[in-house]
């Protein structure tokens, strides 16, 4: 080390220059990665456009696995359809079929995600909108609205939140159309989505085999475009 400092020949310099370049790239990349995964802070807010440009789509990531709070309720998805003004049978339970695919199965396929994620995404995207500051200043009781948010509330939300919510509505509507079509053979003109939320017993009441609190919430009848159907 002491000798090499005195006579560094060029065959040693270029590898080190290359390596320094790599160190810079790594520092930059993981600097952005840090800002991407860290909670929102003044630096990440200031650099948000650059961070988003660098991280999406290929390095997009979210590691809030069961955090900060684990899921403490079950959500079930039920759907029903209407064609030419007639109901096409009752509600179809999408979630139970998926749970049965997983039960006692050590290697379930990925199909169950398509239902559980659709439900979870809808609920969390709705939550993001109704808890947004801009929305709350205009509509103080936005959190009391149902699954399907009104145009006024969506207008008040920042456009990325609104777009994310509308995407999840579209996904659930397509899921419903597909389920009704598979069940009845008829493509529905409008569908209704019901989310059943079962808050299971808290830790202190875990021995209680009782069902716990169950809440139903329905969307209005929706068209294939995810808009409220005029009936």
């Amino acid at each position: 080390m002491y000798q090499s400092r005195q006579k560094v020949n060029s065959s040693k310099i270029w590898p080190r220059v290359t390596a320094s370049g790599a160190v810079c790239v790594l520092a930059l990349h993981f600097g952005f990665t840090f800002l991407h995964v860290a909670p929102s802070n003044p630096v990440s807010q200031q650099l948000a456009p650059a961070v988003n440009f660098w991280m999406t789509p290929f390095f997009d990531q979210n590691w809030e696995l069961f955090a900060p709070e684990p899921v403490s309720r079950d959500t079930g998805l039920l759907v029903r359809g209407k064609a030419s003004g007639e109901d096409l049978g009752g509600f179809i339970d999408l979630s139970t079929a998926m749970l049965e695919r997983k039960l006692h199965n050590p290697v379930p396929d990925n199909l169950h995600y398509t239902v559980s994620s659709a439900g979870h995404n809808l609920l969390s995207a709705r939550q993001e909108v109704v808890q947004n500051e801009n929305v709350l200043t205009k509509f103080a009781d936005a959190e009391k609205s149902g699954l399907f948010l009104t145009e006024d509330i969506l207008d008040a939300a920042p456009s990325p939140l609104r777009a994310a919510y509308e995407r999840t509505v579209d996904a659930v509507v397509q899921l419903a159309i597909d389920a009704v079509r598979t069940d009845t053979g008829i493509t529905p003109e409008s569908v209704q989505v019901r989310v059943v939320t079962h808050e299971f017993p808290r830790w202190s009441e875990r021995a209680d085999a009782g069902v716990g609190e169950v809440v139903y919430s329905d969307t209005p009848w929706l068209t294939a475009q995810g808009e409220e159907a005029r009936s």
Partner: protein
Amino acid sequence: MSVPGRPRRVDPRGLAASGLDWLARRRHGTRVFSLVRIGYGLTTIFMLLVNLPVRQRIWGAEAAYTWDLFMQTSLAGGQPSLFVLSSSAVYADVLYFALILAAVLFTLGWHTRTVTVIFFVLLWSLQARNPLATNGGDNLSRIILVYMIFAQVGAHWSLDAVRLRRRRLAGGRRLRERTIGTVAHNAALLACIAQVCVLYATSSLFKVQGEMWQNGTALYYILRTADYNSWPEVTALIYQWPLVVVGATYAAVFVQLCLPLALVNRWAKAILLPLVLGMHIAIGLLMGLPFFSLFMVVSDLFFLNDREVRLAKVYVGSALSRIRGALPVTDSAVHLSGQPTSNQVVVK
């Protein structure tokens, strides 16, 4: 590093130089990379085969997440995918089976650099086709795959390695390792390790903010969630025991929080790595998330170094030969084939 007889002193320039030389001189972690390659490859093949009967319902023409929806959302969200070229069931199948083939070639290490790129493009395309059907394991592995494109991941246990060895035995010239390739390889290794650390640090720091993780009951709620409960009889038994629930809840957070320490301390590694492997295996079995679990277990291999992989190989090899040596000569193979199997005991 220090000259004998002189007191050690901190030499920042020497330290920086040796750090840069670590990057530029020799390719590190080639065995670890090869193991991860095989692990990711096999997990992907396994996942694709299990999903074979429902592939059209998730990524094909019968998907409830329709092709139009995919075009409006994934593509508009800046996620390119080969699935944009056609909505037909046949094309979806072509991509699916091409991905299986790419995963097989990736596992075997055939023209590894090119195949890694093809494997990534096809896997990315599939995941982008239906974002609802992915999980954290898919997310981590596809990021690591980007880094793996820059690394030499086919140096061991691969068709590429066999071909190189044959060429060398035939008197062919050895391939010269270019410095730029070595630097890219080592930087990719550091990136993989850093990415796995980012996962554990973020995941644990978000958990410590949660009330249920603080009061030690988080595991109870996870074990009761119907979506992640493949064996309700077993999980119901587990959450009857407060000690188990509280212990495992805190352990999960501590292990994830401390895991990066495994990189700097051998004892930390010897304790933390088996714990995190156990955690992921338990998640895979109890919560019905086998592919997530396998991707995580494979990614945890980045906490090992090549010396440890070699040691493990020697240990496993000698254990296997001890088992074979202890077996009576008339083992089942004799009855099955009618041929003596004593030559199998010879260990090279």
